[in-house]
C-alpha cells in the first residue's frame, strides 16, 4: 500500500469527526440562514427566502449596536488582560516569598464555570448588599448601580472578564517568557540597553507568536461571550451590555426566529474570522513578507 494512502487512512477518523461535528452543523446553519424558519410563525417550517435575513440584518439597529458593543468590550477586555497578564508573567519570572501560593490563587478563577463567575459578580454588586457596591459607596462616595448606569455595567463586565481570564493570559505569556533564550538579553545588558529598549527590541519581537496566539484565543472568546454577562446584567440596563451572543440568544430562543438567528450567527462568525485574519496579517504576515523580499 502506498504511504500516502496509509497516511489518509490514519487521518480518516479525525476527518470524519471534523466533518460530522464541525462542517455539517456549519452547513446546516448556513442553509437555515437563508430561510424564514420561525417556530411561532403560522407555517412553522423553513422556507427559502433568499438574502432577506441579511437584508433585514444590515438595517437592524439593535444588531449593529450589539456588534459595536461587543467589539468595544473585546478591545477593552483583551488589551487590559494582555497588559496585566504581561506584568504578572514578568512578576512570576522572579523569585519572591509565597510565589507558589500566589500563583495557585491567581490561577483559581480559570477553574470557575462562567455561569458561576457571573453569579459571584452579581452577588458582589447587588446595590447596598454586595461588598463592591457597599464599599464603593461608603468609602469613595460612588453610587454603584449596575441596573441604572450603562457605563458602570459595561466596565463591570470588562472587569469580570479581566478577573476570569487574565490568569490564562499570564500562564501563556509566562510559558513564552520562560522559553526565551537568555543570550540576547545578556548581550543587550552588556551593550547598555535600558529596560524599555530590551522590552521593545528583544522581548516583544521574540514573544510575538505567543502574544498573537493569546490574543486570538481571547478575542474569539470575548466576541462570543454570553453566560457571564447574562448572569451579571442580563444585557441591561436597557441594551447597554447586550453583546451579540446575548442578542442572538434572545432572538433564537425566546422568539424562536431561527432563520434570522442563524444569519446573525454567521455574520458574527464572519466578523470574528476577518478580525483575527486582519490581526494576523498586521502582526505576522506583513512582517514575514517584508523579511522575505529583502
Amino acid at each position, binding site marked *: 500500500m502506498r504511504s500516502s494512502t496509509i497516511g489518509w487512512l490514519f487521518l480518516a477518523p479525525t476527518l470524519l469527526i471534523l466533518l460530522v461535528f464541525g462542517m455539517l452543523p456549519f452547513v446546516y446553519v448556513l442553509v437555515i440562514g437563508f430561510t424564514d424558519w420561525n417556530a411561532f410563525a403560522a407555517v412553522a417550517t423553513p422556507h427559502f427566502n433568499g*438574502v432577506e435575513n441579511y*437584508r433585514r440584518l444590515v438595517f437592524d439597529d439593535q444588531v449593529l449596536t450589539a456588534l459595536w458593543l461587543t467589539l468595544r468590550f473585546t478591545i477593552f477586555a483583551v488589551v487590559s488582560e494582555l497588559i496585566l497578564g504581561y506584568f504578572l508573567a514578568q512578576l512570576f519570572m522572579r523569585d519572591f516569598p509565597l510565589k507558589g501560593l500566589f500563583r495557585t490563587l491567581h490561577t483559581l478563577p480559570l477553574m470557575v464555570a462562567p455561569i458561576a463567575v457571573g453569579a459571584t459578580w452579581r452577588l458582589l454588586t447587588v446595590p447596598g448588599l454586595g461588598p463592591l457596591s457597599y464599599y464603593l459607596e461608603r468609602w469613595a462616595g460612588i453610587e454603584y448601580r449596575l441596573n441604572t448606569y450603562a457605563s458602570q455595567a459595561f466596565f463591570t463586565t470588562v472587569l469580570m472578564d479581566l478577573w476570569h481570564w487574565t490568569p490564562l493570559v499570564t500562564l501563556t505569556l509566562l510559558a513564552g517568557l520562560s522559553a526565551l533564550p537568555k543570550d540576547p538579553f545578556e548581550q543587550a545588558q552588556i551593550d547598555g540597553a535600558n529596560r524599555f529598549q530590551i522590552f521593545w527590541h528583544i522581548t516583544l519581537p521574540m514573544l510575538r507568536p505567543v502574544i498573537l496566539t493569546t490574543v486570538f484565543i481571547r478575542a474569539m472568546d470575548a466576541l462570543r461571550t454570553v453566560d457571564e454577562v447574562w448572569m451579571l446584567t442580563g444585557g441591561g440596563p436597557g441594551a447597554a451590555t447586550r453583546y451579540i451572543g446575548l442578542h442572538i440568544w434572545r432572538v433564537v430562543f425566546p422568539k424562536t426566529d431561527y432563520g434570522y438567528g442563524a444569519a446573525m450567527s454567521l*455574520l458574527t462568525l*464572519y466578523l470574528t474570522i*476577518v478580525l483575527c485574519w486582519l490581526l494576523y496579517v498586521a502582526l505576522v*504576515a506583513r512582517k*514575514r*513578507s517584508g523579511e*522575505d523580499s529583502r
Partner: protein
Amino acid sequence: MQQLTPRPRRGFLPIRTNAFDRGFIGVVLLVAIHLFWLRFLEAYLPLWCATVLSLVIGVIVVRKG
C-alpha cells in the same frame, strides 16, 4: 514527498499568499461586498451587480493577488 500546501507567491496583495489564502480573501470580499451592497446600494442597483463585481474581483485576486 508530495506537497499538499500550495507554494506561496507575491502578487499585488501586500503579503505573500498561496492559492488557499487568495481563495479565502476572495470569499471574504464577496461577503463584504454583498453586505455593503444590501445596506447602501441596493436601492439604486440590483444585487446581482454585487455578485458579478465580487466574482470579477475574486478571479483577479486568485490569479494576480
